[in-house]
């Protein structure tokens, strides 16, 4: 007797329909075979399914069982086919009808309970798209899938419970999405902005970066506080919007980073990979195409400390994600596209020894060494960074005694309020566009949304010649000025906005 159970296959961020065909033959020697390009984890599913069924006090049929995973030419990975296989076998043995338009997805434990699986959200999205009504999924993953409304998500605890439901013995309520109760959503950063003395301009730059999601480059001597500033950065970021959080949760679901009972991600991710990270770790890839740090930082922050120390290959690979906001990885067997729209916060020393602009220590680098050090970052990468700021070494002792410094310290919360307002303005502005923030504006958007008055344009042109700005920098300045105007709630870009934007231009001279 043949039973077909619907399931799905997650490839990168995409989901393919899959059918698990289970045939329990009346003739032939007892056996249990899985065909259809199973990888090791799928092939081992035989033993898990058999043991789980037996441990659920159900008799395992001593007949010839053949399972086919269709389409048979796509390699199957992971352990999530345990449940459809077990359901197929039980349906033949117990002669119960499977509900129509349903998906089964989940890994079995040897005692017959179901384990947390990755990709539940992707599955629910796929189900909604295809008009699938019911999804049977492990209980611990159910909340994650229930984020998507309009699909019945059945949280399955163990095989016995599922079997009783399928045979019509008990009723079963679909899961209702619960926002995570035990963890309050507080944006927390390692440091609060009010803990950082001085560095007023660097903080202001961070505010602009957060408001318009501009990329930021900090240059400063060791100990000047670059890392501390970057670690405080998540504290001033607003929560993800609904659309954004779905995008982010999807990536995290696909890579199995949503904990049991997990819900939608509201806080912007902050990723700080070490400078020895390989290009694949940063960009994504591997034999099973996993999203890299750039995608895990989607809509959040990618902090690259000691930017010049990263291998050139890794930095150059950042070009596409920085420009397009997504990364396409092609391997001989498969291809995947992951979104990767993040705020790049890069920090570097001004020279190899680090003390080029230090007020007390003497720099021991030769000009050639400094040039070589700076050349490690290519022009195209620097072109994609909007904001540049120098982080000077501050005399903490002197500053901590200065009442004036203390008076103008702002907490991250206060700064965040301003950023939320600026982001709301941008949301309204780009409601008919596919972009969300000022930093994403291409030339056509700039023409449409950033009309410059004659006076402002004059300043920009004058600055272009005086400060040797490239054509690309010209547009950067307009984007930054737009964000500064948004922070102030101004409709038009005025002279002070543009003049301030010029402060954050790249400094070419050594």
């Amino acid at each position: 007797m043949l039973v077909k159970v619907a399931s799905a296959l997650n490839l990168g961020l995409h989901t393919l329909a899959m059918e698990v065909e289970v045939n329990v033959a009346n003739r032939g020697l007892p056996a249990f075979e899985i065909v259809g390009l199973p990888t090791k984890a799928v092939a081992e599913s035989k033993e898990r399914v058999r043991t789980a069924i037996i441990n659920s006090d159900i008799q395992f049929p001593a007949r010839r069982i053949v399972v086919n995973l269709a389409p048979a030419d796509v390699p199957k990975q992971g352990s999530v086919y345990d449940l459809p296989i077990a359901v197929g076998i039980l349906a033949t043995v117990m002669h119960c009808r499977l509900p129509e338009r349903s998906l089964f997805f989940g890994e079995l434990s040897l005692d017959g309970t179901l384990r947390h699986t990755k990709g539940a959200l992707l599955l629910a999205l796929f189900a909604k798209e295809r008009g699938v009504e019911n999804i049977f999924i492990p209980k611990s993953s159910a909340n994650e899938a229930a984020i998507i409304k309009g699909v019945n998500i059945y949280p399955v605890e163990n095989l016995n419970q599922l079997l009783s439901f399928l045979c019509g013995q008990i009723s079963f309520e679909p899961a209702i999405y619960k926002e995570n109760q035990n963890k309050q959503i507080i944006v927390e950063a390692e440091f609060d902005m009010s803990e950082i003395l001085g560095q007023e301009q660097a903080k202001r730059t961070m505010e602009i970066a957060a408001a318009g999601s501009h990329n930021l480059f900090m240059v400063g001597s060791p100990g000047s506080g670059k890392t501390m500033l970057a670690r405080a950065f998540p504290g001033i970021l607003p929560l993800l919007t609904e659309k954004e959080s779905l995008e982010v949760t999807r990536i995290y679901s696909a890579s199995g980073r949503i904990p049991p009972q997990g819900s939608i991600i509201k806080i912007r991710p902050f990723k700080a990979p070490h400078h020895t990270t390989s290009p694949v770790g940063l960009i994504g890839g591997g034999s099973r195409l996993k999203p890299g740090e750039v995608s895990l930082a989607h809509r959040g922050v990618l902090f690259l400390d000691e930017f010049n120390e990263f291998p050139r290959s890794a930095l150059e690979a950042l070009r596409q994600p920085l420009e397009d906001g997504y990364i396409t990885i092609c391997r001989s067997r498969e291809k995947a596209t992951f979104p990767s729209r993040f705020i790049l916060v890069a920090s570097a020393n001004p020279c190899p020894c680090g003390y080029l602009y230090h007020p007390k220590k003497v720099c021991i680098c030769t000009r050639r060494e400094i040039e070589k050090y700076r050349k490690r970052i290519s022009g195209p990468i620097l072109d994609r960074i909007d904001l540049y700021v120098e982080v000077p070494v501050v005399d903490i002792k002197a500053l901590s005694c200065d009442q004036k410094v203390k008076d103008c310290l702002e907490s991250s919360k206060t700064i965040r309020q301003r950023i939320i307002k600026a982001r709301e303005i941008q949301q309204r502005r780009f409601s008919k566009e596919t972009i969300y923030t000022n930093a994403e504006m291409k030339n056509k958007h700039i023409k449409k949304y950033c009309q410059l008055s004659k006076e402002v344009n004059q300043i920009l042109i004058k600055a272009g010649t005086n400060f040797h700005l490239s054509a690309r920098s010209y547009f950067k300045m307009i984007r930054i000025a737009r964000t500064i105007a948004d922070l102030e709630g101004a409709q038009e870009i005025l002279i002070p906005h543009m003049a301030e934007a010029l402060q954050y231009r790249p400094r070419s001279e050594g």
Partner: protein
Amino acid sequence: MEQCCLLMKIKVVEINNSEYPCLLRQINNPPKKLYCKGKWDVDIFRNCLAVGGSRQMTTYGRRVTDELVSKIASVGITIVSGFMYGVDAQAHKAALLSGGKTIAVMPCGIDLIHPGYQKDIYEEIIAKGGLIISEIEGGSLPAPWTYPRRNRIIAGLSRATLVVEAGLKSGSLITAGLAKKFGRKLFAVPGPLTSSLSQGSLQLIKRGADMVTGVNDILADYGLVSPEYPANYFSYSGLNKLEQSIVEGLAQEPKEIDALSRLVNVSTSELGATISLMQLRGMVSEEKGKYYVNF
């Protein structure tokens, strides 16, 4: 490019030639032959000022070099220096920028450009009627002993020597010593006591070099006066209150924008906007993260 320099005609001037610079002939061991690139013109040697200083030039050193050299060169005095990076290169650059003439005396063979990355200055010196001089033929590399020998030519060519910024071990102190020995005038620019790169020049002043407090101190020696000598440094008119306090704050000491914002009590965003505009108007300039008022 390298080849183009090699192909360029090299002129050799021997000591008994009438074209040989007469000031140089007066020193006790003048070079027997001078190899030279560029247009040889006896006039260029008439009024020469040697400028020397540290390779590790500070921003102060750069600004002083720019200020003094541009005014000196623009009244027709030839700037002679050693083409090294730091004060030397800055002096060449400032002279070229103000339309003056400059002579670079190389420590290496005449065919070599050293340091190579300053090729653009090298070519500009020749293009603008200046000279490249060396007493060594061919493409031999500079060595520790060629620098002092080069310095004797610099000092020998010039009526006076100006030391802008020098540490205690600076090569420009050798040039200064030679200038004294040859009986030429020696000028030194005072610098902050707290800077190691001022100790050499301060020592020169203490031992009798003329202290330079303005461009006319040097020009007077040549019987000239700068036409654009400012009555008062740091004076700008038509400033608003914030701009005025920025100028006052920066005139005392160059500052980072954070420190300046604390001093004038204005947020960095507002201050940044104002100072960008002032920079566009040429009133302040920025270097190594600090802002300066322009002279």
